[in-house]
């Protein structure tokens, strides 16, 4: 029977995706850009919506939550997955509400106002069955996908507003967004980019090569030289792995130092972050926050017997507190860190914050 076949096919896809995530970033962070991950996730969720068996929005949300939980568990550091799941859930809520006719999409954020006005504790149970819901949801997800496609360009387009001619810009590691951003600017303006190599993975080198090919005057420096060189830098533009609910960052390790250095020389720090990197997570010393890869990266196995006596740590991410950040450039505009929480409440439903 086709049904089961589809089912198994679907579940196989999910498994494959999970496996990929699990192995995702054995070393240099995620092997694929998080944009890609986001797209894949969304696509997978669409598939689920299409193929899984569900009668009401409630069921669908349940299914998606379940899979979502597994996906996030597979690679906790890859927050975009969770974000996409939340986005989809939100979409379902909206679609449900719309098909339900009620326009209570005004503000789902729990608020004093609601506290006072809302009648009764009865929660929406999403049990009603609307035949067109499926189509609508899928449609909405498609829109989401198209939005995802556009993000990098949208950000890049704003480049010229932020980069004036022959200034010295510092960045760290490799962020595809920043890369696009700078290249876009380079079409019009001449400027000098300093790239911190970001050992041990040295993504900085890739970044530098690709920038220099777009002939931007590029200089590679070691992580140790960041502070030394900072005094001549007049803008710091970095990418990030996640934007946290408090406006802080979870970025490649070394960024915090970079940010502190920038602060010390009061150099503006600009973060290029597509919306799908916003995550309702807070930087508590929660253990999933960090991601540690094999010490191999730092101290080679051939180092011999001292290895058994030494502890070697190789965390991949840094936390950058909001007060060190000047500006966020996202695909929908430019915001101060203090405004992030608002975006957060627009993107996700509070009840989906933890899946």
């Amino acid at each position, binding site marked *: 029977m086709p049904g089961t076949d589809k089912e198994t096919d679907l579940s196989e896809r999910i498994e494959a995706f999970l496996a990929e995530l699990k*192995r995702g970033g054995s070393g240099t962070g995620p092997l694929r850009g998080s944009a890609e991950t986001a797209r894949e996730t969304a696509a997978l969720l669409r598939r689920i919506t299409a193929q899984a068996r569900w009668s009401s929005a409630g069921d669908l949300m349940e299914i998606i939550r379940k899979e979502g939980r597994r996906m996030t568990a597979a690679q906790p550091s890859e927050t975009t997955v969770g974000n996409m799941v939340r986005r989809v859930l939100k979409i379902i809520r909206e679609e449900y509400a719309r098909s339900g006719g009620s326009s209570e999409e005004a503000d789902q954020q729990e608020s004093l106002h609601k506290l006072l006005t809302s009648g009764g504790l009865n929660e929406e149970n999403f049990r009603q069955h609307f035949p067109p819901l499926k189509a609508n949801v899928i449609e909405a997800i498609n829109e989401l996908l198209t939005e995802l496609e556009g993000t990098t360009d949208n950000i890049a387009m704003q480049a010229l507003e932020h980069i004036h001619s022959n200034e010295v810009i510092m960045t760290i590691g490799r962020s595809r967004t920043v890369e696009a951003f700078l290249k876009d600017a380079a079409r019009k303006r001449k400027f000098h980019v300093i790239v911190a190599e970001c050992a041990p993975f040295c993504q900085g080198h890739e970044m530098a090569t690709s920038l220099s090919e777009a002939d931007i005057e590029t200089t590679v420096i070691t992580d140790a030289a960041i502070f030394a060189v900072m005094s001549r830098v007049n803008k710091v533009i970095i990418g990030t792995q996640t934007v946290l609910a408090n406006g802080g960052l979870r970025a490649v390790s070394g960024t915090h130092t970079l940010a502190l250095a920038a602060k010390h020389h009061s150099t503006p720090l600009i973060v290029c972050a597509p919306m799908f990197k916003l995550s309702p997570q807070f930087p508590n010393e929660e253990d999933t926050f960090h991601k*540690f890869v094999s010490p191999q990266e730092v101290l080679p*196995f051939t180092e011999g017997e001292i290895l058994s006596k030494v502890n070697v740590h190789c965390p991949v991410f840094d936390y950058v507190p909001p007060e060190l950040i000047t500006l966020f450039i996202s695909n929908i505009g430019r915001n101060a860190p203090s405004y992030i929480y608002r975006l957060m409440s627009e993107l996700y439903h509070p009840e989906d914050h933890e899946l």
Partner: protein
Amino acid sequence: MAGRVGKQNRPTSGAGNANRKGAADQEEEEQPLQAVLIADSFNRRFFPISKDQPRALLPLANVAMIDYTLEFLTSTGVQETFVFCCWMSNKIKEHLLKSKWCRPTSPNTVHIITSDLYRSLGDVLRDVDAKSLVRSDFLLVYGDVVSNIDVTQALQEHWHRRKVEKNVSVMTMIFKESSPGHKSRCEEDNVIVAMDSKSKRVLHYQKTHGLKRLQFPMNIFHSGSDEFEIRHDLLDCHISICSPQVAELFTDNFDYQTRNDFVRGILVNEEILGNQIHLHVTADGYGARVSNLLMYDAVSSDMVRRWVYPLTPEANFTDQEGQGCTHSRRNVYRGAGVSLGHGSQVEENVLIGRETSIGANCHISNSIIGNNCTIGDNVVLDRAYIWNNVRIAKGSKITQSVLCDSVEVKEGVTLNCQCVLAYNVVVGPNISLPEGTVVSMHHPDEEEEEDEDEFLSDDAEVSNSQAKTKLKAFSAAEVGTEGRGFIWRASSLPEAEEDELAQSLWGLELNPDPESDSESEMSEGSHDLGSRGVSPELDDVKVFQTEVLGTLQRGMEENISCDNLVLEINSLKYAYNISLKEVMQILTKVVLEFPFQQQGPQLTAAQYCSLLLPLLKKWAPVFKNYVKRAQDHLDCLAAMEEFFLEHEAYWGAMVKVLMSVYQLEILDEEAIMRWFSHGVTSDKSRLLRKNQGLLKFIQWLEEAEDESSEEEVDAA
């Protein structure tokens, strides 16, 4: 099962027939990658633990070893795995059936093949050939290999080789670079390999363990390869890529039992068969086989230190419910529902399984604790490997030991290094088990009757032994008043058994002997310097000697004051960190050889003296500076003796030398007497002492002495 099989030949449809061997290029695309996993060690290394649980299922960082192996295979793209089990096959089968590997969605189809007839790797592979299971090149691993190596590159090379010259290369073994003395190098599989640098072809392969000297067959030197390496810095991952011929070859020669046999065999009659074996050396990635408890210790700690990333404890790759744990600073992993008492310190590199509760003021470091364990207050754990449902009462102290499932440790028990408490054992209270104690519920005597029917395999009749255990009483002296279990004392076993047991659990030398690692230190020292320039092959002592020589010569030519010389020499001493003793010996040696340096080796004793004595006079202060304590005197003399033993021609001169040093008060007579009476090392040195002049000199000394010293001499 049927469903799986059905699925299994979906991807491989059309490629089923085995007669399309060779032609690797086609196979690359069409054939799914297969693997043969041997879930039996065919030895008794883990006895008595493996009496109750096959090795493949023993938990390493709270996950059965076989799961690591399977995960490794899956992640390297293996689509079909044949698991061969023998000892306690049903247990393994059971485990696998409810593991994620047998879920319909698993990308790696697992077939379990069990038989009690397997006695060795050889048997298995013969069976593989008989059943003609493999259609193309396949991976061969043991059920206790832990690895995250990405073999794809090795596979490519292998395939390429096979494409270039058909069926010549039968096997590619995967090794990992790791300097000798590395903790996770198993002494037993230390190998020395001669390989062709370019083609990576193995020319010579030999286990070094227990060998004093190595010899290499001549032919490797004048074999075609213009450049080849002899390497000892390799760690055998026990992962090998085999062509289907391997199975055939095993069938052809029934004497092949292990891979080692095979490799040696192939290499020996390479000319005849024209088969070759290749090597793939990887720098990154991790791979090791848990072949004994030392390795268990090493691999576990590597696991916790994340060397096997992404196979880390918190990854929960087996995705079983509730297995997940969190990872926090200094590699501390905690499962769900772990509770720690106040004041308990979890130092570093600790993994605590779910629902385990730990009392107050415990001190835990470098340990792995299983699920549902209960640990009392004031317990100290260091390098302890504690499996599930273990209870440890308060005040216990455990160092580098293994406690199997549902062991109970009563109050105030101390387990010293390398104790093993097998399943369900109870020890204590208030007892201290000496180093290397092994306690099991099975009585060692069970062995005898088993030994007849079984050779190297783990499979043994346990049932009847159960009955026996009932009869035998536990000795309170050994395991404590409330203890339950029998000590597997080495003495309780016949000789052969004894060292086997000693081997079986904790590898061979428990702690590598000092000089070996000291020298490795030295080599390391030079190595790292090499990293910032070039690595010198010169051994420091030699260099130091030449340096000293140089110094003295210059001293001669520019008659530098002795103090300066001393300064020089000291600095050199630091530079090559030479011990004072060595300094003295070398100094003596150098000085004694000095005349040769000046006038070349052909000198008569007389000339020699005439040259040497002024020197001695000149440098007396230098000597005095080093020769202070009585010991120094002896060392100095020893050095002299050594020199003269080498140059018999100058024995005549020796006396004069001694005389002069004595007169220069570099050496005092007791020392000389002492040396004379005791220092005898070889018969040659005895001969030396027979030397006329020397005897006279000694006599003279004796006369020169007064009573007191005479007594001394008698005493001496």
